[in-house]
């Protein structure tokens, strides 16, 4: 499929004007003031990363429940970045190393680990 192109044809001023007007109607935006509108926001308003971006495993189970799981060292071996430590009472996740792949959550028994945006993070401001 060879693409059609009218690259060298002349376009009249009014035709161009009409195309841009159509676009403005469609999007409901003022194209030419776009840069100015956004400049005054900082530093009155601070931007945060969306919590969706950092969804990471969180330990929600109890120490008893963890002790029932015999295979609990699996969490350490499975983690591609060695970001997990399993102690007797809890599963500790190093947020700097975690890439959020979800392998630990998938292979742990239900009710122990959960993907959530509330996991403690050193980067949260």
């Amino acid at each position, binding site marked *: *499929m060879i693409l059609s192109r009218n690259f060298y044809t002349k376009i009249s001023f009014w035709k*161009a004007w009409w195309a841009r007007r159509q676009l403005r109607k*469609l999007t409901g935006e003022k194209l030419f003031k776009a840069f100015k509108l956004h400049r005054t926001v900082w530093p009155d308003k601070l931007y945060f990363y969306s919590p969706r971006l950092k969804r990471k495993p969180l330990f929600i189970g109890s120490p008893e429940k963890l002790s029932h799981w015999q295979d609990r060292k699996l969490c350490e071996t499975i983690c591609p970045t060695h970001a997990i430590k399993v102690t007797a009472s809890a599963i500790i996740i190093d947020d700097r190393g975690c890439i959020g792949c979800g392998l630990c959550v998938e292979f742990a028994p239900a009710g122990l680990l959960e993907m959530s945006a509330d996991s403690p993070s050193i980067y949260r401001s």
Partner: protein
Amino acid sequence: MFSWKEFENTKTVLSQVRSYQDQAGQHHVTIRPIDLQRWMEVACEDLGFLMLVEMAGVDLTGVPHNTHRFELTYHLLNMETHQRFNIHVLVDESEVVPSVVNFYPHADWLEREQHEALGIQFSRPLHGLLLPHDQKFFPLRKNAQIKQWPVEKELTAPQLRHNPNKSEAPFPEESWQWKSFGLFSPLTRGDFEWMVCFDPVKVVDSKVNIGFAHQGFEKLLESKDWLQVLQLVEKINLGAAPNYGIAWSKTLEDLLRIKIPERAQAIRIVALELARIAEHLTVIHDMTFALEMPEHRLFINAREKIYELIEKYCGRRQGLGLTRIGGVKEDLPHGWIVEYQAICEMIKKNLKAIHRSLFSQNKFRKNLGAGQVSAQTALQWGITGPAMRACGLNFDLRKSQPFYFYQDIDFDIPVGIHGTAYDRYLIRLEEIYQSFRIITQVIDNLPLGSIVSQELDLDYTALKDYLSHSEIPRTWHYTGLESPNGEAGFLVKFNDSTTPYRVKIKTPSFPLVQALPSFVLGLQEHQLKSCLASLGIRRFELDR
């Protein structure tokens, strides 16, 4: 069409072959290093294997029955018959391998890379590519002890010769200026330094330097499990994350002969195409941003809609962690298809209006008609993807080596004429429409059933047991998929253990950056920016 039997009768070079095998549709030949030049001549000129796709070396210490220290693999592609040809060379530490740069210029950087990583000697003087120049060990050898690498000294711009005698006729070089593109520019999204020399207006010379953020990613993968590699590999290009994940799982599935269920195949296609749309929108955004046109925000808005769709499916915006070996992670949620249809129609309608308004502006048309890549350049330097299709070569892995349902789907491959930045823009725009067309066809005929194959629907230890006991071939294997910016894949060699013995990552950005200085001569500065943005060079794809 190349077949081994015909070839066997006609050629006398055959006596030089150590072994031949045909495995999974790819030809493998093992030869001595002395015969390499002759073989490349035959492959390039007689058999029509015009493109050198990838080249990899491996340290064979610890492999049973090995006679030599290293093995080099050249992976060649014939674009007419869609055949793939692997030439293996067994080398010792003291032996010298003849360079193949005279047949494939793309081999320049690849040879430099193998030279510094493994210490293989080639028949031309080579210096380092990714590592510091004064490094004294070879990281990809199996006995290498990795320490912290020394920091390189300060970088300086290349100096021009100075004219001491001003009274004579002036050198034209006096007015030349070196400017730095790349290292911190948001357009390239890359950690490569690109020094460009302008005679005040046009480009005269340029030099590329990569390796600023070298992580030793391939070395890292050798110590990881097959399942862990799947998670790490997706970070190579976040824009095309499903692509790398699916390529890796497809490698294992091909070698172990696992058949994945039809529903999982369909969902994988949907994920691939959605990622393609998002990446194309990003690249077009970069082009318009480079020209300082206010429409660039509209492409980002459209991309956000796509990311929201992906997030509703798998929980992460860019489609990370969506693949599993033998299937996919989750099923499509209830009501997802209705949302997709609404967003699809909206984006299609808006893109037409945006294109019309962009096209009507002289600024856009003038600046994009530059940066020509010829077909010969593309073949020589191993360029694939939209940059190759823009110059008229009709080659797409979805058509030429169709996998999953691609052969049953109705879609077209857009092809350009001139190979300029404007052609790349048109192709990217058209591919967005074609991807929507593919997804709607797949969703209309979405098959029922499970999403993971029943053999592999196990917990982790059982799955690991299953994979370690199944017989995986010990030879090299290449799997490539069509990622938004070109061909991406893996050239792998496995061993008895559940960690890969060697993984070589084939990325589309690597050849593009290598070829950059050859096709930007004569451009002006603002043309250069948009041309650079239209190639879609990404950061971690340059790193190994």
